[in-house]
């Protein structure tokens, strides 16, 4: 909006116009697009790191890395995927879709929105420059446990610390914006309990972010002062406590894993009703289940720390609290199944990814339940079983969720239908590759392979080779995804405004592609049954 003037003055210089448009934009759709492309780029960078990891682990013996470089790969892969690929993808979807779904003209704080995006390229420039510094990139894993990351950390640890600070600022500002938008800019008639579930799950996610990102910021600041200003928060020799580090980290880290899955829950809750042509089953219990999961996420952090010498009472508390998460998660899965039940189902690509998400995420949920049992966790902890577990909740969870969302809303964004045949090929090849990559990790973990090792003994060789082959396939399938997205942007069958026959919601009432400015006058929101009864315009 405010950029119109700048665009006018720079019209004669295309490059300046381009820069001004994207640097100064305050439009939620453009900022959403920026977030999504940043996430896509970082997804490929972090994915390339994963390819190197799997190449190294293809066979026993050290192949082409050296152990310290391998640890850097593992660390950057985790950090960039979590903070660079998954989180910005969800923020991008929120930017694009929340105003469209609640009938708002834009985000409530457009300039703040611009700022929270443009912090991120600087944050990742800091983090991704670290491999080129003397001493190499951070090499202590994405969990950066002290004292490996403090007294023993390489010089680039400080780049990592400031990178995390910037990401935290970006996330907190972005979350404030989402909360303010949802609370203030809903269309008349859209009460909280009539909001689409994607908006609900993002609202709850935003609260989680506001609560835990400052904890992370505090943690890295304590690291910084330990490293440079003589404090000893985490150094035992100075009276500090390395286990305190883990308590603080996981107090952030456990809600963080829900931050990376709740928006996917919302996406599945949008897509499944559309393609089952049936209303979401148990809307209210879906909202309550999401809120319960968010609450429980704050009281289960200790389950990452069962082997640190936690007292029996602590172990029992965290075990029971963790097991309890299975209840609301189960409710969500059952509700999705009941939504499909006796519907009139078609399996377009978004639906395939959504169903794939429900099934494979459940596998990760089941292994999470197994991990909650403290005695068994003594055997599973820090093995590849854990790696299998969290990749099942993150890849088919967070990433399949995002892909489902992209296929679902891409026609609305671009005005073109994607190539359904290629979309299906993408889904089926990704499905096979994901399982080929991550399922054998359960077995290598149970057989005793610790995580984060550069080289392994011979009995783990078969499973690792299968995982590596799967990972190569998985990498290729995402190149196909990139091709499909670019092809759709550049052309394709014209999408209707409704796009999907069974879709409900305000986003489908605007033209495809969605014009830069929508809902400049707020629409009257009425659900279909309500509209039928009251003779209004169904939306």
């Amino acid at each position, binding site marked *: 909006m405010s950029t119109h003037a700048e665009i006018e003055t720079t019209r004669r210089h295309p490059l300046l116009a381009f820069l001004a448009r994207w640097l100064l934009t305050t439009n939620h759709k453009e900022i959403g697009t920026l977030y999504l492309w940043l996430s896509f780029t970082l997804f490929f960078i972090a994915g390339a790191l994963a390819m190197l990891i799997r190449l190294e682990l293809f066979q026993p013996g050290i192949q*082409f890395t*050296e152990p310290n470089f391998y640890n850097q790969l593992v660390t950057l892969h985790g950090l960039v995927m979590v903070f660079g690929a998954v989180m910005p993808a969800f923020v991008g979807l929120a930017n694009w879709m929340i105003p469209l779904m609640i009938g708002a003209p834009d985000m409530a704080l457009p300039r703040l929105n611009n700022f929270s995006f443009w912090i991120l390229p600087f944050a990742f420039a800091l983090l991704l420059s670290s491999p080129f510094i*003397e*001493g190499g990139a951070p090499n202590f*894993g994405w969990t950066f*446990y002290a*004292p*490996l990351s403090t007294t*023993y950390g*390489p010089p680039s640890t400080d780049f990592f610390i400031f990178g995390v600070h910037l990401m935290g600022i970006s996330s907190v500002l972005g979350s404030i914006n989402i909360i303010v938008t949802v609370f203030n800019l809903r269309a008349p008639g859209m009460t909280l309990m009539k909001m689409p579930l994607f908006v609900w799950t993002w609202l709850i996610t935003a609260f989680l972010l506001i609560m835990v990102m400052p904890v992370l910021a505090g943690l890295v600041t304590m690291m910084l002062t330990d490293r440079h200003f003589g404090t000893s928060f985490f150094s*035992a*020799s100075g009276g500090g*406590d*390395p*286990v305190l580090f883990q308590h603080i980290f996981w107090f952030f880290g456990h809600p963080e894993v829900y931050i990376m899955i709740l928006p996917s829950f919302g996406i599945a809750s949008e897509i499944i009703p559309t393609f089952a*042509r*049936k209303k979401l*089953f*148990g809307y209210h*219990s879906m909202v309550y289940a999401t809120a319960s999961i968010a609450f429980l996420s704050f009281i289960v952090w200790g389950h990452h720390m069962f*082997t*640190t*010498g936690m007292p*029996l009472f602590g*172990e*029992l508390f965290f*075990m*029971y609290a963790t097991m309890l998460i299975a*209840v609301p998660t*189960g*409710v969500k*899965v*059952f509700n999705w199944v*009941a939504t499909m*039940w*006796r*519907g*009139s*189902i*078609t399996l377009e690509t978004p639906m395939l990814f959504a169903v794939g998400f429900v099934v494979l995420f*459940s*596998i990760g949920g*089941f292994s999470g*339940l197994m991990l909650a*049992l403290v*005695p068994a966790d003594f*055997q599973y*902890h*820090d093995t590849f079983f854990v790696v299998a577990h969290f990749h099942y909740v993150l890849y088919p969870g967070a990433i399949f969720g995002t892909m489902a969302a992209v296929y679902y809303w891409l026609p609305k964004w671009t005005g073109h239908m994607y190539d359904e045949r290629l979309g299906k090929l993408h889904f089926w090849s990704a499905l096979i590759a994901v399982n080929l990559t991550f399922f054998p990790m359960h*077995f290598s973990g*149970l*057989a*005793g392979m*610790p*995580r984060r090792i550069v*080289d*392994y*003994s*011979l009995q783990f*060789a078969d499973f690792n080779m299968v995982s590596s082959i799967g990972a190569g396939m998985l990498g290729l399938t995402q190149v196909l995804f990139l091709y499909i997205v670019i092809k759709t942007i550049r052309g394709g069958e014209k999408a209707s405004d409704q796009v999907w026959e069974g879709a409900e919601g305000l986003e489908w009432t605007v033209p495809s592609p969605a014009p830069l400015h929508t809902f400049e006058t707020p629409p009257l929101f009425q659900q279909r049954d309500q509209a039928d009864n009251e003779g209004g315009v169904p939306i």
Partner: protein
Amino acid sequence: MTAISSYLSAGLKNAGVFSALWLCAHSAFALEWDMREGVTDMSQRIQTLHQLSLGICIVLSIIVFGTIFYTLFAHHRSRRSKAADFHENTLVELIWTVIPILILVGMAIPATSTLIDIEDNSDADLTVLITASQWKWHYHYVEADFGFYSNLSTPQAQIDNLEPKDENYLLEVDKPLVLPTHKKVRFLTTSKDVIHSWWVPDFAVKQDAIPGYINEAWTRVGQSGVYRGQCTELCGKGHAFMPVVVEVKPEAEFDSWIEQQRLAIALASETAVADRNKTWSMAELLPRGEEVFLEHCATCHQPGGLGQAGRYPALAGSPITTGAIEKHIDRVMNGKADTEMQAWAPQLSDLDLAAVMTYERNAWGNNTADLIQPLTVYLTR
């Protein structure tokens, strides 16, 4: 690019070795894919608990995924042109909230009772203090009051794919921990530098070794044998290379092993006395020093003494190795606080320390011609 091409060429060169190895690996190991039962009461109870929870998860998966696949098929638009119109049912929602809670209680009961027994560290017959450091374990028998370091014994050439890998590749050490059968052994774990974790899957004992903490765990092994595990907490570049090997012997054999160890320690101290009373020549010290350097120092400082920029200082031309001898001795014996440079005085003999420092002062162009005698080292202790 260069890394990948060298990987490929190394791969081609070693293709023969690998394929031979591959057959070896297949015949030597039945494919392990489930949690092992182990050799202690606890490991077996944990395995049963694992089977129970896995079983429950498999049954639930079959029900839930079966329903999903059924509905995708049976309620496809090609079979049902019009969707049903229900979207809530309090009773059904109540049922699928309560049933999972009951299942969870059923899992929590055996888990709790097993956990309470695991955390009972009382009445141990024997205590071993396990001290971790980068990247080795130190075992101290508290009652018998002696201890030793346990280092990876797999040759570097096997890791670098220059030699075929043997059966216990990366799971073998120079000196294993030795324990008696049928005794309750208490482990105390701690660390000198970063966090490590001591794990033997067959005992179901995994306990973090944390600087400033002493953690407890215990085991009682029923059958003699050799049991292997690894460090499970990322602890730096040597994380993959600090295995745990435990040799469990019948009690009588264990007692005589303890006696032998005591004798060996006494003998070693006699040798040490002899060593330090002798005046050593450069020709005697240099080869020994090179051996010690390659075994203990080259991981970080590199075989050529050039270190790694920004992480591990070069020893070639360094002010420590070419400057005052006292400073060199101090650094090697006492280490440098808060870095990976550890104190070597407790780990190496006077002779080895003297030899390695003499080597460092005369290798890679450090032509100081200094000769450090074991006696000097002994007097510095």
